[in-house]
């Protein structure tokens, strides 16, 4: 409701989307949960390490999406969809760079000469 009023008064609904208090509060509450739970899981060590790892990475991905939608206001309408296109393109590049580097370097490590753990040597 307030969004529509703002779009009318400013006269450019295609430009930067306008913030609403509701989006910020929802985003903030979700972020608090998605931050507190991973910290709690790691600090109390309630679950085993693998499950905790999967859960905190999942929480991080969800929280990044929450921030993108609620705080950065990325949606299909803003700037005629170009904001979203640039975002998706960057996300793909980021995934390729990070996952690709880890994958290649992991294989290099395992294919190189056997290394004794640095701490024990």
């Amino acid at each position: 409701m307030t969004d529509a009023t703002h779009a009318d008064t400013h006269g450019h609904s295609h430009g930067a989307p306008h913030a609403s208090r509701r989006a910020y509060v929802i985003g903030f509450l979700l972020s608090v949960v998605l931050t507190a739970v991973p910290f709690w899981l790691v600090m109390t060590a309630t679950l085993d390490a693998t499950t905790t790892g999967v859960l905190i990475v999942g929480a991080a991905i969800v929280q990044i999406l929450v921030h993108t939608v609620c705080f950065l206001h990325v949606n299909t309408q803003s700037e005629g969809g170009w904001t979203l296109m640039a975002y998706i393109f960057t996300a793909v590049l980021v995934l390729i760079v990070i996952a690709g580097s880890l994958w290649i370097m992991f294989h290099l490590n395992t294919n190189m000469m056997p290394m004794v753990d640095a701490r024990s040597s």
Partner: protein
Amino acid sequence: MAAKATTEALEPTFYLVNDEHHHEPGGSTLLGFWIYLMSDALIFATLFATFGVLSTAYAGGPIPREIFSLPLVALNTALLLVSSITYGFAMIAMQEGRLGGTKFWLIVTGLLGAAFVGIELFEFAELIHEGATPQRSAFLSAFFTLVATHGLHVTFGIIWLIVMLFQLNQRGLHPENQRRLQCLSMFWHFLDVVWIGVFTFVYLLGVLR
């Protein structure tokens, strides 16, 4: 060559004239700034990748569990998260044309950001005091590069925020200032998004390892 020219000449030519959008001055600034942020995200992606590759290269030095203090990181995360919503309140005050409210929330955001940088510098000082310097191992080099690059971004965000407070004091909420505040809003929220990656992949997964 000649054949190519003929086929080209035979093909009908279309011109797409796309002027359905009326562009006001500075109308493309926000999109341009967004694209800058996306390129900044790529810088952080390479730093995250470097850290990921070197995250177990301890060289006999300290391991994450020994040097990271999670309560401190949790406090820093909370500061940055709260500063995100206080910046949001500043934007809402700006949309409603309330200059006083905008300045108040900007100051709160700036103070939270300054506290974040202060705690991070304290953490770095502690680490260096314990001998966990960037020179100690590849893991620590990658750690300091990644986290300090983020901290430097926050520092520049605070400087920008202070400049905006002076601008608001002198000129008020005119359209140019509103546009600048929207850019700073994207910058600030973007840094919070990067921090999600830092506390998850560097600190939490590091302590878990």
